[in-house]
């Protein structure tokens, strides 16, 4: 399955361009065997640069981290990892917006799903799926669900999340008025450095089609 990652004209992509995600189509057959190394293993991920979430207006998280487990998988798409902890912000470093500080509570597990692998670059394209997070800013509350496209690069261990408008949706907005409604198309952009838990080892994902 090839997924063209077109740039949306929407708001958030101004930020996305900085992340340098290029959508070069792969010529290889879709991968059906996903080899994760080490496997199975736990991983941890910490943001590199700020994370930008949008729900009409942008929000900035200077601290974000994730943890979970990863394992080799088969099929396409292939579920190569489960994110069991996903934090946006930390004590002393809340996520901020011009509405005020934003608190995001993730409902996990989220999945890391591989769709397309380019052997020449060692880059897996895919998405973070099963996303669900409850967001509050003062009395304004809403839930975000869906998926967020991204890539994983073996040479750097960077999981670059760069969702496109429409992948994530808003449900149950309360007291947010015109700023966040069910028509709002949230986005999630940012880079995470992934390591094998408790180490500085960068895990790798290799897709193949035997």
């Amino acid at each position, binding site marked *: 399955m090839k997924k063209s990652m077109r740039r949306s004209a929407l708001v958030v992509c101004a930020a996305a361009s900085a992340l340098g995600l290029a959508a070069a189509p792969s010529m290889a057959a879709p991968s059906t065997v996903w080899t994760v190394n080490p496997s199975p293993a736990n991983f941890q991920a910490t943001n590199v640069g700020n994370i930008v979430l949008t729900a009409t207006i942008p929000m900035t998280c200077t601290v974000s981290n994730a943890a979970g487990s990863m394992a080799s998988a088969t099929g396409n798409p292939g579920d190569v990892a489960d994110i069991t902890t996903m934090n946006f912000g930390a004590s002393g470093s809340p996520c901020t917006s011009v509405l005020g500080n934003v608190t995001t509570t993730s409902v996990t597990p989220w999945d890391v799903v591989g769709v397309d692998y380019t052997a020449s670059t060692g880059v897996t394209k895919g998405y973070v799926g099963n996303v669900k997070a409850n967001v509050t800013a*003062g009395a304004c509350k809403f839930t975000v669900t869906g998926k967020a496209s991204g890539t994983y690069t073996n040479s750097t261990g960077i999981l670059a999340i760069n969702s496109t408008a429409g992948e994530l949706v808003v449900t149950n907005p309360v007291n947010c008025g015109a700023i966040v409604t069910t028509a709002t198309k949230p986005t999630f952009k940012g880079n995470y450095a992934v390591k094998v838990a408790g180490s500085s080892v960068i895990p790798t994902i290799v897709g193949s089609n035997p």
Partner: protein
Amino acid sequence: MKAKPAAAPRPSRTRARARARTTSIAAFVVLAALVPTTASASGTQQVEAELPYVCTLPSGPLPATVRVSAEFPERASAGEPFTPSGVTTTVELPDQAVADLAARDAAGVRAATRLGVGVAQNAATATATWRGSAEPVALPESGPLTLVTKGDVPSVAGRGDGDLTFSAGALAIDLALESADGTATDAATAGPGSLTVDCALAEDAPGQGLLATVPVGTGTAAPSGSPSSPSPSGPAGTSGAPDDGQSDAPGDREAERQSERSPKVLENTPGTAADRDEVPPCRYDEQHPPTDVSLNAYVTGYANVKKMKGAAYLPPSCVLIEQGIPVPGPPDPDYLIFDTVSYANFHYQERRQTPPFEATFLSFDFAPVKATMVLEQTDTMRIDSRMKMSMTDFSTTTDTYVRAPLVLHVLDLEVNGTPLDVGSECRTETSLTSEDPDPANFPGDHLVLYGRGELLIGQPATGYLLLSGGVLSGEATIPAFTGCGTDGEDLDRLLTASVSGPGNLIKQVQGQTCAIAAPVFPSPANEGQCTEDLQPYEIPVAEH
């Protein structure tokens, strides 16, 4: 309230009044909070305490050594504030702690400490937080890791005679970890993150953490450093010593403190937040039930009195807020605009006012003038926020105007220790006023405070935002006073001449709000917004 004869001998009533008037006109200079805090005794005691602690690190509880050094006065007078000085906290964490931090890819660390210090006098107790910060240090290859923090600490005043003891309690160490390339893990950089290490005093700590003993008053002569843990069955003669002669205080103040006779921790060191037991409660109750858009917050700051060339300190005051629902603003080709109208009320003992606050003014003929005042609302405060997002660079701003109809009510006036009876109705004729940027839509007398928050894409928000707080500023005109004085003594002109007028700058700092229906409690993942009983978690610090 009737005029009170002065307790001290004086030449004649006429002369005393004349002096008082001169004094009052002279200068509102310094706040009580800013009066230099010095001990009466010239001698000081240098304290060096080494205490065993148990610190909880990621790998589990580890023993640690904490050394606290500080200088205390050898003794002090009752009611007289003093400030421990030269406070240095040295934490020595063992080898394993270094390994724990190294496992997080930390190459360096910047530490800040928060030491809970129990202050006790007879059976009364209070708690102060001694904060310290350190320069960044490189992580050694092996332990121990020694962190040295320094900082200013709150002043303390004993309310009566008796030994005042200071004991170290819980210690929290906030560690900002730095990666090998030397970048801190703040704002735009990534790295090993931050960590708060909680430490408890070891059970076998000598003297249960006693740091120092300061005899207060003339009747005590306890040796320095003697453990005198507070006991309910302490010396009956001194327990609950009367406080500083405020028994004739107006009803407003009588119930102000839950433990009036506790040693008073004067959390007024600039840059230091007040302890929670030193601020009035801020919670919704049966008379003020919360809605699903209810918020609460503390606000504190300074108001300059231009004629007096001085500033009055408004202590942390509770505000109850009903957060508005954003609606689309006027169409604009370049911006997406949302407008929100929120409403707010001060909340102090079921009244829409600030707590009473004192200002001490020093006159050229040495007589201090002390005024006790409150700001009273005459109507609900309105908060207008306009959020604008640029359609070209997606930068966002929120401009907030707080419109507050507030009269200044003078409760007490004292000149050189002699009360001047202002009566019970001594107020400004109208609300403090400001020039309103939109007078057509907002007529009437009110104070206007303004704050702006902004966020450039990818960067954290800065400035004032209603939900997360920040600095609000404005400029007030203080109207003439009315109703001041009794027994034919008209103090209106005196106060008006000495205080009223334009150009008084106001700077208030609002803390993070607590959203009652969506409370955020402190956790490693979240900056706390609410206490467990739904009061504002943050107590803001006034800024000049």
